[in-house]
């Protein structure tokens, strides 16, 4: 008796987003489940965790934000090797406002989101005009140089950094702020990229001359995307600062660059859900592997290479395909 593998595509009707011909409860569930999963997971169940894991999940959320910000930049063809630039700037802006002007976190975080986004956009605006690897080069160099600038000139607290900053009003508040931010970013970015605006963004990445000939100022759009990505990254930095009650040089360090990229690539770039998934796999994993010390970064590096070279699709795309398809063995005579 022979068997062959049969593959059925489930719910093409339910999936094609323009046609809302939902006929049964099952179909609705089928569509809603993947969207409800992160919401329920983050907002309802996770608070039940112990304090230790909650803490880890908060830093996971910060990395997830950085990873989604990275993904946003990728969607317009900009590869950033320096997410720590966004993190560090956001962190220092929030830290300075809190330290020097005594603004409470409720003000510093929004201010750092906007200001940080603007500062980073201004820094990187000239490079956005160039194609290819220039953006990667500059984003890699800038945070590391800023780090040494802080160290050398002893501005903003120098090597000690700004310490004793105000914490969040409570751990649960911090938790909900972060998870809400993750969800808003996830669904907001996905929505944006699904709209006509997203079509333009992807068009710029795909063939910039076509978009230019359509009467669209591609540099302006790239600047907008850069600002969006940088603000989300700065927001992550501002939150991280108030969580740690500290803003300092580690904010510019490579950890905040390599981890989000690895998360995004492992999860699957271009979907925002992929980077989120990647962060929720890699960060807790690295927490478990804490004893390994420097070896963790080795793992990120190796993961990054393997996924870029062998599995460029990422985990999320794979899961999505499997979710929509049913595979089974059937008998053939």
């Amino acid at each position, binding site marked *: 008796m022979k068997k062959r593998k049969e593959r059925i595509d489930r719910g093409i009707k339910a999936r094609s987003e323009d046609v809302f011909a939902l006929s049964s409860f099952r179909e609705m569930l089928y569509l809603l489940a993947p969207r409800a999963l992160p919401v329920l997971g983050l907002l309802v169940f996770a608070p039940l965790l112990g304090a230790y894991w909650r803490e880890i999940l908060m830093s996971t959320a910060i990395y997830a934000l950085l990873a989604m910000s990275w993904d946003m930049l990728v969607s317009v063809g900009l590869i950033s090797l320096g997410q720590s630039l966004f993190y560090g700037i956001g962190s220092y802006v929030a830290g300075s406002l809190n330290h020097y002007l005594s603004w409470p976190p409720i003000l510093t975080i929004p201010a750092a989101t906007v200001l940080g986004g603007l500062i980073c956009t201004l820094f990187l605006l000239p490079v956005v005009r*160039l194609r290819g690897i220039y953006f990667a080069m500059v984003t890699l160099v800038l945070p590391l140089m800023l780090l040494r*600038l802080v160290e050398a000139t002893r501005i903003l607290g120098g090597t000690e950094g700004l310490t004793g900053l105000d914490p969040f009003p409570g751990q649960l508040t911090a938790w909900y702020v972060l998870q809400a931010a993750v969800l808003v970013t996830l669904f907001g970015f996905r929505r944006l990229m699904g709209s006509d605006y997203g079509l333009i963004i992807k068009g710029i990445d795909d063939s910039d001359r076509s978009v230019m000939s359509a009467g669209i100022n591609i540099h302006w759009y790239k600047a907008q995307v850069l600002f969006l990505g940088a603000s989300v990254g700065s927001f992550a930095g501002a939150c991280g600062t108030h969580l740690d009650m500290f803003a300092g040089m580690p904010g510019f360090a490579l950890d905040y660059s390599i981890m989000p990229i690895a998360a995004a*690539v492992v999860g699957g770039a271009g979907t925002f859900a992929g980077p989120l998934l990647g962060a929720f796999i890699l960060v807790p994993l690295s927490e478990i592997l804490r004893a390994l010390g420097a070896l963790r970064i080795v793992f990120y*590096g190796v993961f990054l*290479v393997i996924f870029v*070279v062998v599995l460029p699709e990422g985990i999320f795309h794979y899961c999505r395909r499997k979710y929509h398809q049913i595979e089974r063995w059937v008998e053939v005579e």
Partner: protein
Amino acid sequence: MFLGTIVYGFINSAILALLSMGFNLTFGISGVANFAYGAVYIFSGFLAWILMHSWGVPYFISVLAAIFCSGCVGILMYYVVIIRVKGLSLSEVMATFGIGMAVMELFRYFDFVGFRYTLPVFVDGSLSFGEVYIDYQRVLIALIAVCLTGFIYVFTHHTRVGLAFRAIAQDERTALTFGIDSDRIGAFSMAFGSALAAVAAIVILPLGTIAVEGGYEVLINALAVCIVGGLGSTVGILVASVLIGYAQTFTANYLEPHWMILVSLIAIAVVLTVKPSGLFGRQKELEERI
């Protein structure tokens, strides 16, 4: 003081040029940006150290072996990783970045940290130059930088292989129709660039210790010089090295040493706003010829 600044500025420039040459050359020949460059640099330093101190191999042989092995590492990287993502420049960037990161942190994990990791100088002693004293190692650095630059210029502009490289860099598809094997050249470019990184490491590392941070530092410096000079241009690299090198030395001597880092930052900021593709860069703004 002034004469000293001039001399040390020159040596500083030579160091910068040496550090960035390999990265630039690989990119200039095959369009591959090797972000594992810093890792190759410290790899060759540690390799030479291990050969000399753990295995007792004589200096010259260790040095040659380190340079040779670095070249091989370049080839290996090309055939194992880069070739699979060739042409997808963003994947190339991330893959080489990941490799570099992994290698450097691996050294940290195996505890290659400390003052004992130093390479010996080539010859001891120093030279007086009016009232300025410079050690022979620094003279050697300057000499090697000058020779290598000359060699690379002649090689890429006046030999057949070099011209083939430039043809590939300019238009891969046309070059292919003339029977030039782009993979062999890509591998060669990686080997060449990595070997240059090793040469730089062998002559520059004796001035300090071999440290993992040094790898990152080298990558930053190489990138900074390339950004200012313009990626892929040998002349640009030289001009940028001299500019940044002298500016740093002058700042260090006449202002304060800790302002040095500011010089590179300002140079990058100014160049990026005035001419984003670098002083001698020809980076296209548009995706393709239309």
